């Protein structure tokens, strides 16, 4: 009894201290993250109080898988084809260039790190490197949003940054999904031939597409949703859909984030309920992200001495890759009116999908340095969340001024469609 009460006291005091520290950061630096929630999770977890032990973590799988799928589905709903079709080609060029360059640079550096420095075989190095490169590629506009809200400045580069953050997420989730298909783990039934890597990739896509089509039919026309109790019932239906799709993905040892991305894409592009779906997903994004942080904190169990080297290296690699990707996309690849060589600095914040990918990795590849991947991700997310607002504010300030001299006929950034 005393142990449990002590555990509760530790959690309460720990949370209050963490809250006070990060609240100060919020005030001084415009901090956009939720590190205090990682602290709560860590305090709840087996490393400190043990209230959230391995058994409880197992019991909470539905909530965690819901959170992973929720973020994946939200990402999928951003890619609505009619809205994508009217985006300036130059914006898409900038976004894809930034995403692919960042991913490529991070992947090359991480492969070298894991293979040549840490001494892993190519396959093992590739699995870890692709996962961390995907995490490195992810960006979020949270810092830009915060700066815009605080200063009232509206940067013309803002829509480009929004699009770039989403393309970053698309590239990262697709890469992670393909990774789990190509380097698939686990034995299938003896009655069937083990699928090839390509077949697993197709199966992964097929699960997402068929789930999307079925849930489109399940949700029905928009009028049906309006007749119902609205958000609450839609929440239940979406939660059910996500949990079912995630359950199927876990069963096949594939990525539920990728499956739900495809599911979200289908829902966004079919039927008339896409606005309700997107609005609900957006409204609940923040609590879902914070819930994931708590879970990640609880699952965090740093033990390998390798962490002391790999985690800082990952932060440096991400920083380099981000700057380089931003420089290529905002420099040579950008048209005259949108030249922003410091684009990468505005995209330092990582957001929820980075944590989601790392948590997903710990679930599907517990055999291969799961702690290392989770730790590197958490360190990177928490650290970049602290500096992101200041860097983003700098970029916004510069672009707001520079646009005054842009010629009238220069291509303008369009707002990102919802």
């Amino acid at each position: 009894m005393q142990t449990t009460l002590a555990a509760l006291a530790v959690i309460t005091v720990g949370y209050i201290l963490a809250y006070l520290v990060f609240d100060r950061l919020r005030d001084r630096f415009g901090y956009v993250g939720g590190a205090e929630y990682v602290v709560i999770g860590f305090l709840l977890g087996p490393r400190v109080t043990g209230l959230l032990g391995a058994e409880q973590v197992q019991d909470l799988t539905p909530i965690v898988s819901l959170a992973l799928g929720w973020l994946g589905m939200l990402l999928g709903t951003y890619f609505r084809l009619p809205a994508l079709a009217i985006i300036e080609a130059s914006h898409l060029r900038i976004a894809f260039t930034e995403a692919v360059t960042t991913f490529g640079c991070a992947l090359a550096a991480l492969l070298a790190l894991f293979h040549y420095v840490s001494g892993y075989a190519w396959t093992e190095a590739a699995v870890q490197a692709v996962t961390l490169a995907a995490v490195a590629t992810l960006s979020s506009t949270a810092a830009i949003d915060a700066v815009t809200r605080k200063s009232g400045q509206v940067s013309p580069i803002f829509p480009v940054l929004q699009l770039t953050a989403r393309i970053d997420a698309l590239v990262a989730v697709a890469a992670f999904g393909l990774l789990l298909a190509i380097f698939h783990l686990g034995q299938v039934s003896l009655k069937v031939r083990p699928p090839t890597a390509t077949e697993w990739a197709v199966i992964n896509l097929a699960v997402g597409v068929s789930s999307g089509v079925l849930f489109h039919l399940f949700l029905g026309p928009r009028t049906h949703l309006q007749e119902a109790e609205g958000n609450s019932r839609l929440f239940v239906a979406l939660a059910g859909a996500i949990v079912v799709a995630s359950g199927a993905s876990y069963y096949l040892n594939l990525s539920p984030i990728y499956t739900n991305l495809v599911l979200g894409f289908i829902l966004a592009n079919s039927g008339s309920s896409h606005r309700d779906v997107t609005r609900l997903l957006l409204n609940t994004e923040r609590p879902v992200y914070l819930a994931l942080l708590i879970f990640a904190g609880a699952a965090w169990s740093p033990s390998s001495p390798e962490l002391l080297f790999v985690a800082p290296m990952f932060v440096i690699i991400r920083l380099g890759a981000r700057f380089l990707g931003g420089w290529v996309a905002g420099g040579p690849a950008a048209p005259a009116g949108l030249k922003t060589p410091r684009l990468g600095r505005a995209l330092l914040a990582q957001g929820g999908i980075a944590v989601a990918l790392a948590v997903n990795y710990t679930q599907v590849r517990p055999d291969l340095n799961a702690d290392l991947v989770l730790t590197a991700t958490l360190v990177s997310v928490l650290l970049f969340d602290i500096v992101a607002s200041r860097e983003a504010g700098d970029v916004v300030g510069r672009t707001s001024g520079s646009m005054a001299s842009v010629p009238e006929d220069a291509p303008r950034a369009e707002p990102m469609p919802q």
Partner: protein
Amino acid sequence: MIRRLVVLMLLVGGAVLLEPLGAPTEGVIAPRSLFLFGILLLTADTFGAVAHDLRTPRLVGYLLAGLALGPSVAGVVPAGVLEDLSMMKRLAVGLIGLLAGAELRIGDLRDRWRIVGSILTFQTVTVIALLLGATLLLQRWIPFLAGLDREAVFFVALLFAVLLTVNSPMVTLALLTETRASGPLARTTLGVVLVADVVIILLFTGAFSLAQASLGTAVGAPDIMMGLLRGVFGSMLAGALVGGVLSLYLRFVKRELVLFAVVVVFATAAAAQELEFELLLSLLVAGFLVENVAPVRAEPLLEALHQMAVPVFVIFFALAGAELHVQGFLALWPVVLGVALIRMGGIYVAATGGSRVGQAEPAVSRYVWTGLVSQAGVALGLATIVADRLPVVGIAMQTMVIGVVAFNESVGPILFRWGLLRAQEVKVT
């Protein structure tokens, strides 16, 4: 409806097709349970919509969905899966407790204490007396009384009667949330079922130790009685602590209340398991203290809890439905039905009489009984304690209690909705 059912069947069919490709690793936990949990949610939502179209409470649909998929009927969701999902149910119970406590306003209780007190007293005395008498009269057909001596028959029957006096705060709150009912009937019913929850646990403690003594297993009876009393007062103490934490959070942080409520409920559930106190009671006390005692505005918390209410009710009632054992009802249906009807009659007489003595409004006098018929988690939880600690007699009694609860859980919400409609307190039909 048909479209949705076809989709659900296609989903299950698709899962069967994928079965040979299943390759879960040890890091991925119970994907089958996860998948079936999703199917259960979607089915519950569908059945809830059908129930609503048929002008019955949605929660009856949720229960039927759980029952249809659960081990008793189709077996799509087996018992092992329900075990995997037990934490989800505990979280739902905790959130419902917190919401119920926060809904109970001291002002309402002060205004209606005479009515609530008199209905509660009449209900407790009448229902226990009637059920005790009926059980003694029907003892030849009641399996758990077979072979006991006269003294044991009396005290075991008393324990059975006390178990069946329990109401259901979950059903009451779910229905009030669904219909957004407000008025004297809604407030009185909520007051009675919440206060009854505490009273019944105390009565159960006494009846249980008497039954134990009469069965000759009284060696540990005082210990068990102390344990249960400690459970009640420990729950209240834990509730006060949780209420304090919630108040501090509302005073100084006031962010991400939905998430914070879930974390608090989870931590309380973990502590309750460790320290053996009652989760529902402790969070009920916590919610009540935050709403009525703490020097903070509790509306934001209440609003956050209301946002979660529908999904939480779907989870709770769908899982509760899946756990219902129809076999328990079918095997003994004439006796179970008889006991359930006697209980319902007793509640009608007691609630009507009690509310008249308490000088309640005419609508309350006429319809308050409809809100007291439902039974759910608390009754089943107490029956489980009996089954665990009174070998043979306890397990047979649990089977019968489950049968009666299954009946009351299905009929009670329909009756209460009807009562609220007749009292014209329903805002959303």
